[in-house]
């Protein structure tokens, strides 16, 4: 069965690119643009992996990670954080992997693959 990735990224083109890459690598992809979308998507269906932008218009990825990890229904979902900033103060226990922007296609595919296999 195809694994399902929830991609939350506010930039339209980067979101389109991620969807394109991940669908090409045979994943099911759901997308959203905000923290609100993230929670709505989690209410509708639990994905296998969350690919989360660190800076969303209505919340920052680090806080969102904490929320997801505090909720019994979602705490098992591995989260991959993407950011253009250096990851200086992230609690590494709540994050499965980091991806620096700009990324290469290969980085996205191998990181998602590695996280998918580990879980």
């Amino acid at each position: 069965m195809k694994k399902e990735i929830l991609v939350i990224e506010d930039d339209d083109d980067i979101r389109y690119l991620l969807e394109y890459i991940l669908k090409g690598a045979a994943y099911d992809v759901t997308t959203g643009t905000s923290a609100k979308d993230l929670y709505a998507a989690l209410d509708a269906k639990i994905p296998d992996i969350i690919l989360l932008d660190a800076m969303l218009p209505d919340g920052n990825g680090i806080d969102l990670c904490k929320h997801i990890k505090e909720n019994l229904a979602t705490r098992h979902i591995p989260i991959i954080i993407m950011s253009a900033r250096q990851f200086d103060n992230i609690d590494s226990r709540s994050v499965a992997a980091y991806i620096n922007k700009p990324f290469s296609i290969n980085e996205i595919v191998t990181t998602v693959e590695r996280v998918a296999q580990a879980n």
Partner: protein
Amino acid sequence: MPHKQEKYFLESIEEKQALLAAIVSSSQDAIISKTLSGVITSWNPAAEQLFGYHETEVIGKHISLIIPKDRLHEEDYIIQQISLGLRLEHFETIRVNKNGKLVPISLTLSPIFNENHEIIGVSKIARDISENIAAMQEKEQLYEEIKILNKKKDEFIAQAAHELKTPITSLKGFLEVAQKNTPVENSIFNLLERCTRQVNKLNVLLNDLLDISRVQLGKLQLRYEWFDIVNMMEEVLEGYTHLGKHTFNFKNRTPIIIQADKIRLEQVCINLINNAIKYSPLGGEVEVEIWTVNYTLYVSVRDYGIGIGEEHFSELFTQFYRAIEADSYISGTGIGLYISKEIIQKHGGTIEVKSKKGEGATFTFSIPQQTS
């Protein structure tokens, strides 16, 4: 103006007193005398100027006339010191003038002795320092404003660089997708590869800008790890696949395990090698050497390019400085060596240059290693 004939030794007491009185009355500083109980006994024109009272209004009055209420205790302290025969110099305080306006002054107070060496009063020289204080306050305010502006500038650079990363991320991604879907033999493939290289250059420039703001805001942090720096250098050199006119000569290749921030040291090495290539436009050898002496690691990069005049050495590692003219055909931002120096210093090390104009340059950095 005709001068009276000069006369150095005054004979009579009257003459001496007349001279002293003239000095006091023409002084720019307020000169006041008072008894030990604080009653004013003399008051020169500068005192009138400073405090607004005419001599006739204050002689016989108590000095508290010009002391603000919340500073009356100062007078007790002054009298106590004077009674002990001590002087007070540059005592900065505030007095109040006839109009009730507060005047910042610097006071020098000395006891007045009679012939029997008994203290009979206090002489007081007051200088208006309101202008000094205003100038100092203005300077402090300007300094604060500059500090705030500078911080804002660094925050703006950081913010702008991050914003620019978003379009670069999608550009780089789409170029890669397009390239993957283009056959290598198609001429478009080569164009896409060149586009990608330019986007990567943009990204490096942005990272430099981010580093600058990180250094300025005190946010440059090192992540120490153990690694073989010789191996790291080999990997760095392997990355230069389009060398053309240059060749690398990497000496002593035995592994040297060190503890440092690998990514940051790699950044410094790449910067030095890029400079070596950039500033030897006619090509030639770039020599790289890594060695240790007495628990200190040394890395040097030498080129045989255009070299640097000694007059540039002191500025070479400062922000935005370039040793060549701004309109030179060799481009650059003047950031690389500044960041390199910051990274090396953060490791407790130093970086230096040896060069002569026209004879190439050698950059060497050293980092102390633990003696464990």
